[in-house]
């Protein structure tokens, strides 16, 4: 009820309000390519966002490949230093360790791929 009264009071305009309205009134501005420019900018922004993740992932991968190879070689050398019975004991305790690691890597790759497709 109160809000209706407020709305009615807002609508009751005196001559001064009508005069101000007529002074503030202005002709509509023609679009003249304005909306097309905005939409082009929006589309460009969308493409940039879509490309950013894969491009940076590739750059990161390219940068990381050398140290990663070094790490793998170092790990292989380290494993050769470990006593053979320790390695065989670990394999006995967790025979599925290799499959788990491989599965986790595949899952991560699939999730990243899906995310890119959805985006």
């Amino acid at each position, binding site marked *: 009820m109160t809000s209706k009264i407020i*709305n009615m009071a807002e609508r009751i305009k005196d001559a001064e309000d009508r*005069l*101000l309205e007529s*002074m*503030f009134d202005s002709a509509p501005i023609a679009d003249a390519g304005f909306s097309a420019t905005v939409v082009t900018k929006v589309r460009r922004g969308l493409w940039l966002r879509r490309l950013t993740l894969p491009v940076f992932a590739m750059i990161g991968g390219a940068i990381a490949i050398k140290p990663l190879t070094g790490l793998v070689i170092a790990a292989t050398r380290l494993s050769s230093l470990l006593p053979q019975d320790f390695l065989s004991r670990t394999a006995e305790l967790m025979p599925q360790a290799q499959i788990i690691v491989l599965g986790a890597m595949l899952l991560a790759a699939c999730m990243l791929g899906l995310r890119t497709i959805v985006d």
Partner: protein
Amino acid sequence: MANGDDHQLVARIVSDQDTAAFGELVRRHQSQVRNFLRKLTGDIATADDLSQDCFMRAWDKIQTFSGRGSFIGWLLKIAYTTFLQSKRKSKRYAEILEQVGHVAEVESRSYSVQADEVTDLEKLLAVLNDEERAIMVMSYACGLSHREISDATSKPVGTVKSVIFRSKEKIRTNFDIKDHQHG
């Protein structure tokens, strides 16, 4: 009717990132947003730049449109924020230039009109400060209700009403608007 259509377009944008739907929204509201900013800045080029910024921000923030009020009210809120931020930025820029000893000839983005082509409205707007000008334009040029202006400016409805009252007082003091009415 237009409100419902706007809400449908917003739903399409949010669900499908539909740029065509956004283009339709821009086409519908560009005139009001540009007019609002032209009246705030007093400069066509600045106003059009700010309008583009405003629509780009609207695209980024479209998920935050709750759908409770009108879309144009929400859009004018972004336009007003864009205007205030741009003004703050150019003020900071002018201060830095002054500090390094340059004569600040920067475009201050405050209300400025060319002396040779001053209209009645521009004279009238020149006596108001930014906040008063924005609220008066939202009320008398864009036809927003006090509630919508309150949402757009983040000020209580009572403050909006008192700003309108104060602005009208200022206009009355500076201009005999009754004379204008009778020619």
